[in-house]
């Protein structure tokens, strides 16, 4: 364990603002490379291409989707009416799905982060019997594929009467082994034992120490876990698909998928126009997460920094 480097790293981190600090640690007159920039912009174009298609496709009616060139607009763009149709289809169930997703992802992310923080702190700062075994058990757990374990989980949840309720989606998402791993590393690094000892000598209880001192220091790591669990739960498809039968409880992924099924299997009248709604709905559903990442950049970057450096 390179303790020396880690102390230096902490000191350096404390000295400068996380995220954007490129120019401050190099000579400010460093030349920018245009060829490299162009190459990376080409790379960027590749990554944004499907999203560009999604944007263009959202402006088209279903008929235009079939009849016009995919990567450019049609003659009669109708983005606004597509958006309106998306939100009014099936008695406004799309809005319902968005709210469900916010609820599930938000509750799971906050809960998972808190649990991971507490457990990470516990593993980092305390030694007790079964310490190593428990930690390795949790990490090993993510290696077991959950797809066909869905049925045993469903059966157990059914016995508890939790199937087809929001709990069926939120509870399993509260366990984040990656979050635990990250928070443990972060707790070891960001909460010095000396501080904990000092607080103990002042007579503070363990819980008090955690809540008033440790949590504050763990904040960037906490935000990282929140964000990454948010993404994982927001995009979770298989678990809610199995657990939920009532479309009013669907998150956005399962909802859009059910619309896609409807669009595919067609039918006369309303169903035949569903392709445009699936596409527009997909576009709308991506926006919240992208915004969240954009606005919270500085936090998750520094949180990940520690997790990536340590073993």
């Amino acid at each position, binding site marked *: 364990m390179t*303790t020396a480097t880690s102390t230096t790293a902490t000191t*350096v981190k404390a000295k400068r603002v996380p995220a954007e600090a*490129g*120019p401050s*640690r*190099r000579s400010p007159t460093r030349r920018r490379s245009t060829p*490299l920039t162009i190459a*990376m*912009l080409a*790379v*960027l174009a590749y990554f*944004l*291409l*499907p999203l560009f*298609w999604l944007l263009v496709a959202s402006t088209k009616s279903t008929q235009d989707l079939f009849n016009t*060139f*995919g990567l450019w607009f049609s003659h009669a763009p109708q983005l606004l009416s597509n958006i309106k149709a998306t939100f009014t289809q099936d008695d406004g169930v799309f809005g319902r799905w968005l709210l469900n997703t916010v609820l599930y992802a938000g509750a799971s992310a906050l809960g998972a982060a808190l*649990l991971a923080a*507490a*457990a990470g702190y*516990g*593993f980092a700062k*305390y*030694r*007790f019997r079964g310490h190593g075994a428990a930690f390795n058990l949790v990490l090993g*757990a993510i*290696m*077991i*594929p959950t*797809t*066909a*374990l869905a*049925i*045993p*989980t469903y059966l*157990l949840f059914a016995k508890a009467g939790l199937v087809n309720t929001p709990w069926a989606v939120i*509870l399993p998402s*509260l*366990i984040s082994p990656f979050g635990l791993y990250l928070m443990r590393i972060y707790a070891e690094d960001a909460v010095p*034992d*000396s501080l904990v*000892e000092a607080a103990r000598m002042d007579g503070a209880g363990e819980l008090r120490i*955690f809540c008033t001192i440790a949590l504050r220091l763990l904040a960037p790591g906490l935000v990282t876990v929140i964000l990454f669990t948010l993404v994982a739960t927001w*995009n979770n*498809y*298989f678990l809610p698909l199995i657990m939920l039968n009532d479309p009013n409880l669907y998150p956005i*992924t399962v909802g*859009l998928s059910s619309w*896609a099924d409807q669009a595919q299997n067609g039918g006369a009248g309303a169903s035949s126009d569903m392709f445009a709604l699936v*596409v527009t709905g*997909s576009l709308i559903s*991506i926006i919240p997460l992208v915004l969240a990442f954009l606005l919270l950049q500085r936090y998750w*970057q*520094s949180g*990940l920094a*520690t*997790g*990536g*450096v340590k*073993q």
Partner: protein
Amino acid sequence: MMATTTVNTPVKSPPRRRHGSAGVLFIAPFMVLFLLLFLAPLGYAAYLSLFQERLIGGSTFVGLDNYVTALKDPELLKGIGRVALFFVIQVPVMLLLALCFALALDSGLLRLARVIRLGIFVPYAVPSVIATLMWGYLYGPDFGPFAQISHDLQLPAPHFLSDSWMLGSLANIVTWEFVGYNMIILYAALRTVPGELYEAAAMDGAGAWRIAWSIKLPALRPALTLTLLFSVIGSFQLFNEPKLLMKVAPAVIDSSYTANLYAYSVAFISQQTNYAATVSFILGLVIVIVSYAFLLTANRRRTA
């Protein structure tokens, strides 16, 4: 003084031991949920895997018969082989790209670095349902844009959804989704390299490549280990993308295309929950073996 000692001897220092029981309380909420929501279904699945249920005749105890059958099952072996191949091809490419992008971003040579960084990362925020929808369209052999452009240029259309290209097309989708995520982990690790090291290297006259090799890569080793570990798990568990592409290419992607997809088909199409549990465990075992083999080699290299 006590503090310094604590920092330098991290294992089994008395204060930690003394308050050990508090530690148990801190990990309790997490571990209780873990027990209930993960170990319990896992145990139940293990129990189920010892039985066999038939449409005529109900449920019977068969001991380890399911496991014996699974280990000889050609569909399962084929599925595992395919994800192993996928892993060997896709993961190095993806991590190499992530590494290159992270180095490029960290080099300070780029304009619009923030935009590029965010743009490469955005696909991670897109659920695989939507990602496969978009790529499924782009791959379209008749009306997808690549096909249309080749048609206009009088070139043969690329067969993204054919038998021989399919694994590559899937690899492309997965790479598109996760390069940004891996890049960010590597980039964040690079950002923690203290500026003094670079100044020292510059004073010694080291060029950009030498710096990259001697300073940046070693700093990245733990982060690379982490991303590689997650990639092992992710690629062996490949499920979402092939399942969703099945709709547009049903003749290429069959129900046992990947091991995880096979487990799903056995559970939900053939309704053999017990055998599906068996298949899942075997797949899990393969992943555990590969992961630990990899971790051991990585650790041995580090101490060498």
